[in-house]
């Protein structure tokens, strides 16, 4: 069950690299760090770069149904310092990501219950000035989330994509010191880790009644009998039907992985034999 992380700056990524004891993987053109099932890409600043690095990672690493992907980074908050509850260091999970340049909004699916508060995140192309705070929905302003989300959503269901932002400023600071950025991320890692764990615990409904071994067996039979894609689908459904209706394991079908068929008629005959064995009517 891979966990993918996309983080804009090395300074923000370093605490996560250390915490999860990741090592750089030189096989990638972009900076990618990994250990076991955790993959982290340092994307660079900006929506486009975040999208490219996210898509690149997700298309190169084998995913499974349970993979999750997170963007983690610092962001400014529209609330003025000392004029509300939000302070530097607070962390939020994005419940809405708006791309300022297009006005489009995206919604990660919030199925997993995490310890994090939630916020709207608006992705801007230039750092937002205090004077322009009123041009975005109250909440966070960052430079990556929209690009990250759109790229991740091409590959993953929306409840397996998360975006966590740590408040670095109230739109007054023009540049955040690198060291400070690292500290802010480091301070949020416990909550972040808990959020990732919560996302990973969500299952996509009841599992397939066919196990991986069953599915492999059906594929082996397909190859042996040279079944068309449509027949492969029918055979898979017959196997499912058998297990669901009999509440027992598949009968022994290994002999169908040894038979040799030379003509289409022979293939058809073997397929009909299989159909007879798996029929539950």
């Amino acid at each position, binding site marked *: 069950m891979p966990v993918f992380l996309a983080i804009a700056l090395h300074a923000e990524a370093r605490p996560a690299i250390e915490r999860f004891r990741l090592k750089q993987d030189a096989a990638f053109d972009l900076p990618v760090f990994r250990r076991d099932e955790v993959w982290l890409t340092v994307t660079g600043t900006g929506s486009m770069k975040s999208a490219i690095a996210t898509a690149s990672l997700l298309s190169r690493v084998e995913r499974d149904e349970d993979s999750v992907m997170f963007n983690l980074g610092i962001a400014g908050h529209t609330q003025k310092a000392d004029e509300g509850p939000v302070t530097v260091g607070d962390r939020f999970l994005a419940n809405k990501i708006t791309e300022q340049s297009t006005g489009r909004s995206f919604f990660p699916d919030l*199925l997993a219950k995490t310890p994090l508060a939630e916020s709207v995140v608006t992705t801007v192309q230039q750092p937002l000035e205090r004077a322009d705070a009123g041009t975005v929905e109250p909440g966070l302003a960052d430079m990556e989330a929209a690009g990250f989300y759109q790229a991740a*959503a091409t590959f993953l269901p929306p409840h397996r994509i998360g975006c966590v932002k740590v408040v670095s400023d109230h739109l007054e600071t023009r540049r955040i010191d690198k060291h400070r950025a690292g500290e802010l991320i480091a301070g949020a890692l416990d909550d972040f880790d808990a959020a990732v764990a919560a996302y990973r615990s*969500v299952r996509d409904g009841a599992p397939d009644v066919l196990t991986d071994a069953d599915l492999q067996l059906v594929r082996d039979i397909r190859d042996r009998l040279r079944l068309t894609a449509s027949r492969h689908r029918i055979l898979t459904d017959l196997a499912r039907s058998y297990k669901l209706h009999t509440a027992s394991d598949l009968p022994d079908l290994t002999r169908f992985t040894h038979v040799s068929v030379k003509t289409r008629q022979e293939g058809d005959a073997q397929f009909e034999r299989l159909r007879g064995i798996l029929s539950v009517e």
Partner: protein
Amino acid sequence: MNGYGASSRWSNFSHLYIERGANDYPLTRRIRERFAKARVVEIDDYKTVFARPRQRFQAQKESMKLILAVKKDRFLYEGSGNSQDFSFKAFHYNTLMSNCVYNCDYCYLQGMYPSANIVVFVNLEDYFTATREGIRDRSNPVQPFYLCVSYDTDLLAFESVVPYCRAWIEFAREEPDLLIEIRTKSAAYRAIRDLQPTDRAILAWTLSPEPVAARYEHGVPPLRRRLEAVRSAIDDGWPVRLCFDPVLAVPSWASLYGGLVDEVVRKIDPATVRDVTVGVFRLSKHHFQRMRRQRTDTPLLYGEFMQEDATVTYPAERREEMTAFMRRRLGDHFGEERIFAWT
């Protein structure tokens, strides 16, 4: 990284997604008060949440969100061939809500909608206006305008949150040429029990053998409670319809569904029932295929099926046997003329 924790999911309706344009409707205010602790996310158009790609229907079923929206058009739809039309020339339905709080294994909504989240359209008056026009322009003025208002949802099951059954019953009371059907599997009759019955609103209960309900109709009240609700509604003077639909080809189906008919007539005097519908399991081909892709865990979607035009159902012989069986068993008690069957 943290290991796998116990599954930590939000409970249902932890989040309200509210279209900007829906904010000022009384129902929106009511729902916000009802779910005062819910996290609110403002949206421009409900489809940006509801129609996201790659959503997982069954994963969402365990943490359904509410989406409050304003329906912009299509306040009336013409009925489809998969529904009984009760010999009405004009059979219509509307979608006041999309999706349902229950989760039946055989539910076609899994194949129809991209999301399991519940959309509530808050602009009820626009539906009323369109319905008045539909009544006025109906093709056969001799018959009332027949409208199913609990379609693609179970309206009564959600009445405590969205009091639409009440609103539609009151609306029907004012419209002499309207006949509405409110179909449900819920036992929440008490939510409308204070209303005066009217002949212009049929309360329709879908009934299943208890073993079928317990195994395949998740979250739905057991048969016993549904029958208590039926009984109360009839005692109060409502026209009640009993729906044996879908009849499922489960093992021992004849004994299960025969037993169901026996149980029903033990509890309910057939003479007091307005009419009865019967239909074996059937789905549009498109919905069936999409459901199968998502549901690899329920026997109801696997086995012998056939396709007729755009409908998937059991092979003809099986289907005819099941329909004939149900007609016979129900006919013994209700008489043929009150039974409407999809064949």
